[in-house]
């Protein structure tokens, strides 16, 4: 289970932008969201950047809601040929 932090260790920039969010699992999306909140909270980014971050945050929230809101349970069955 990879707990991928979506931020770049060098630049500290939030990854991935819009296109990556759609593929994120709940944990990654939530981690990215927390990171955005922490950044804005730290107050080190300007207004324009904070609005951009906010927008990304909203997208992450939508992603989380989409995952949680899923009503259909996906069940598959795997046939394994036993060696014994």
């Amino acid at each position, binding site marked *: 289970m990879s707990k991928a932090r979506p931020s770049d260790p060098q630049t500290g920039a939030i990854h991935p932008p819009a296109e990556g969010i759609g593929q994120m699992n709940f944990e990654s999306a939530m981690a990215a969201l927390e990171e955005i909140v922490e950044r804005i909270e730290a107050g080190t980014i300007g207004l324009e950047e904070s609005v951009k971050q906010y927008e990304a945050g909203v997208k992450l929230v939508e992603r989380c809601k989409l995952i949680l809101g899923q009503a259909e349970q*996906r069940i598959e069955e795997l046939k394994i040929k036993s060696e014994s």
Partner: protein
Amino acid sequence: MGRLPFDPQKTAAARAERVTIVAAPLTVSQVAAKIGAVITSGLPEPLRFVGEVSGFRDRTHWYFDLKDAGAVVNCVCFQSTARKVGFSPLNGQQVLVKGRVEYYAPGGKVSVLIESMESVGAGSLDIAFRALCDELRALGWFAQERKRSLPSFPRRVGVITSRTGAALQDVLVTMKRRCPAVEILIVDAKVQGALAAPEVAHAIRYLSERATTLGLDAILVTRGGGSMEDLGAFNNRDVASAIIESTVPVVAAIGHETDTTIAELVADERCATPTQAAMRLTPDREALMRQVHSTMQRLASLTLRGLRRDELRLQSILSRPLFSGRGTGFLRSAQGLNSLSQRLSACGAMLALRRRSRIDRLAARLQAGRPAAVYAHRLTSVSVFAQRLRAAMTLRLASAALQLEGHTRQLSAVGPMQVLDRGYSITFSTTGEVLRNARDAAPGSVIRSRLADGELESTVGRATEAPAIQSTRLARGKRKPRPQDGPTLF
């Protein structure tokens, strides 16, 4: 043929020839009664013996076999006695019993009617279980430090169990109720019997090796309750090793709450029942939804706070003298042009107001949690805006200054100095008032006249009314009323 194995003279047939009255054949019941009588008379006292419980069935009364390496004895323990035993015998358990041997005619079976039972030591299965426990504990397989934490939100969970078992249904129902977003991959495996252990071990290894490609974040191994023999597959060394080698965390829920199996002891997480395991593996959707909402609100209020901070900065810029309604000293001194300054500042205030209401609108949308992307893009930084506003105001002030210069020129054009240039003069009384009527200057009084260049002081000789001049003045006044308005210019 040689010698016959019996004496033909002593056969029943030979005897029958001698006996004339032959008894009627016995009934099966009579035979059973005779067997019963023989057993009862031959074994009159209750027997005390030790054996391993096997095939235990609890049907109000207990039915089971007691066995050792060479023999099996059928036993029955009636409910009244069973209540006094104080424990429920397990298959494989070694027990000491006391009981009377009886022939049960309707079943054609010799049974021991148990009168008392007590446990003596452990059964062989139990002994094997304890031995394996000791071995694996020594290897550190039960160590808490070795256990991995479960993912808080697994994408997919592999469930190894019997396809037809009730355990699977419990798992599916619970996981659907808790969070349908977690996908399930079912692997059917025997969970009882000789094939169970190899099948379960193989399934665990199969899923573990392909966890990444299958997108599995955890494995659940489960089955419902059963006897210790039924659960044998989960007390198996190979299954235990498959579990600890797994690349993803393994949850085990085997049998009832009271059962403990090796599989559960080595698993990363042990759950009492399949339902509990399913709950442990699926996040609570409602709780997560609340978490997402609260994070969203934190984000919105933080962003809003940032916006308010910048708004305050803008307000402080606008309250500087340049933009304030009071205007500069230059503008204040220019009578009649005050309105221009007011207009200018009103314009600035309106601009600010417009920008502010835009920020408010944006902030409201942000708080609503669905800001249009276009808004965010169009939002100019407030500080950048303030700079632009300052530039615009400076430009307007410059043009106002030009206008003011023009007005000043116009003012001096209509001022009295130009009139004096044209040969007129202004005469003041002794008290310094402008003389408009000859009667106001008494003969002998000193008057002062101001010319274009210099002043004259004269003494009044005679004052006369001059109707001709007055009519001229009136006529001039009609044509050009300015001389009358002249003094108001000062």
